[in-house]
């Protein structure tokens, strides 16, 4: 059985349907990506999984447990954590305080070790440990947002547009690290407009269009798909 099974979810903002029957699966150890244009429902899918905007109908099952109506805190506790769209670091907390917030629900004594792990993945964060997050560049804040999500020690990591608004050189560095996180065993569900990077790092992909899944395949196959190339890869 897949680690995460999303079955025909419909999610609304008020009366507006953002998702009109999305189904997808994520196997343990995979890196799966959702690509698509503005308003396709990529972020809403992640927000539905993490409980921020629960779907009106449909089911989300994580490791055999139905989490469709589970509150966000309990979902984090089950092992899903999210690096939200737009980074959303706590601007007036230091880098270290942000990371500690990521471990908010944990009471074990492995937190210091996980901070070291995050610093190993993003050495730049260590240099800026005592700096206020709001004073850092967009790329550094993205690193912090990913690091903060890792501090929950997730089994499934949700990443929402990690390349958004970031200088290309830093995007590359961030994507190398995402690949590394996946290699170290964390399952990843990635949402991205920048399909080039997303298809390079992931094993499978779903193409979303106006709240439905238009296409799904292995990332390698999608990269050579002429329609995808035309619509999303600038080919």
């Amino acid at each position, binding site marked *: 059985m897949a680690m995460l099974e999303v079955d025909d979810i419909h999610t609304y903002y008020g009366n507006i349907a953002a998702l009109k029957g999305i189904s997808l699966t994520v196997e343990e150890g995979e890196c799966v990506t959702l690509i698509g244009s503005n308003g396709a429902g990529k972020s809403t899918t992640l927000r539905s999984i993490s409980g921020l905007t629960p779907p009106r109908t449909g089911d989300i099952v994580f490791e055999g447990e139905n989490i469709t109506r589970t509150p966000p805190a309990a979902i984090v506790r089950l092992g899903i*954590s999210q690096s939200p769209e*737009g980074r959303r670091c706590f*601007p007036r907390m230091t880098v270290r305080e942000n990371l500690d917030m990521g471990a908010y629900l944990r009471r074990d004594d492995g937190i210091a070790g996980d901070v070291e792990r995050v610093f190993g993945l993003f050495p730049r964060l260590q240099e800026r440990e005592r700096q206020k997050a709001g004073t850092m560049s967009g790329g550094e804040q993205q690193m912090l947002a990913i690091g903060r999500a890792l501090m929950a020690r997730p089994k499934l990591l949700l990443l929402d547009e990690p390349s958004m608004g970031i200088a290309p050189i*830093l995007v590359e560095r961030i994507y190398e690290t995402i690949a590394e996180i996946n290699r170290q065993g964390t399952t990843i569900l990635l949402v991205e407009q920048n399909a080039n990077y997303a298809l390079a790092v992931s094993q499978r992909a779903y193409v979303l269009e106006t709240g439905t899944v238009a296409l799904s395949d292995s990332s390698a196959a999608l990269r050579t798909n002429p329609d995808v190339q035309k619509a999303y890869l600038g080919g």
Partner: protein
Amino acid sequence: MTGDAAAPRRAPAPVRGPRTRPRAPKLPRRARVGLAAAALLGGAILPLFLASGGGLIEDATLALAYVVMALGLNIIVGFAGLLDLGYVAFFAIGAYTMGYFGSLFHINVNGGEGIHVLVSGVAAELPGIHLNFLLIVVLAIIATTIAGMLIGLPTLRLRGDYIAIVTLAFGEIVGRIAINGDEITGFGTKLTNGRQGITPVDKIDLPFLDPFTALNLRPWYWVAFVMVLLVLFVNFRLRDSRLGRAWIALREDEVAAVSMGVPAVKTKLLAYGTGAAFGGISGAFLGSYLNTVNADQFQFSFSIFILAMVILGGLGSIWGVVVGAIALSFINNYLIPDVLNNVPARIGLDFDLTQLSFGIFGFLLVIMMVLRPEGLIPERRRQLELQEGIEDLAVDGDDVQPAVRP
């Protein structure tokens, strides 16, 4: 999902030029601990230097009661960032708890015999319900915590100004009920005594001590002082706790905080509940100290008065709020009525300065906002918030500008 969302949620404020001052230097830790200890010691022995019968000690005791309220409101507004304009409701509920369980109000209860629990002196002989002051404080805490959470519930889905509107309405509702409660009857008793007030109210009666009197105010002062100490302790513990961090996180970015697993509902309700409880403690004390529980005490202006203390001292800053509360309380209860009241008359104007009290507070706040918007003793994070423009420029040695658009 637009590229625009890449910009920080609040665009950095433009630099304000020469008007912005550098951040106040931070005193070394030892100096701060020393200052705090000196202030507490000074506060503890102050009554020995004042006449015990009234005047300054009366104002000082009142000021301490206001410190307790301001510290309570500071948890809601300063820590959790929920603008509460109806704090007077908790004063009212605390005071009425005192009035219900420590006065002649329920005069027919128990066939006119009264109910007495752990009280001595005159109160033990009178009809009505008379509980020990400490029990009443516990009841006041329970009542205001529940009320605080009830008012919190409808505001959970709201933000910013809308929270202010709902809480304002709640304060008004409680105030109106207090005024008109003398018309509401049930179980053989009225709900409140309206504008006549419940009076007299039992004096504080503590174990091993004689019942307090209106002639010697020193014990009252010390009780208020102990309340302040307890509330200060709780404030510091809360600020540095997991809950304190959760409040800051919710204030800074609610979505991110929820994503980290902060339970927003529980965390906000705890802020309302604890903040309200402090108002209840102080309200019960004031009911006894002022010897009346009177509907005219519970007006909207009181909420603003306490909020002004918090803002004057520095939102979120514990010591700042203590200083702000003492300062405004002395201006209101001593400086304006006792010292400066005749100034307009002396220069040939036909009014008392007390009539201008709220105008003076408003003026003080405006001056503060211009000269020192972060408050008398600013909280570190809030100060950053108000001086963000400069901080953003202070980034050095970076290969990317903050928030480049794609």
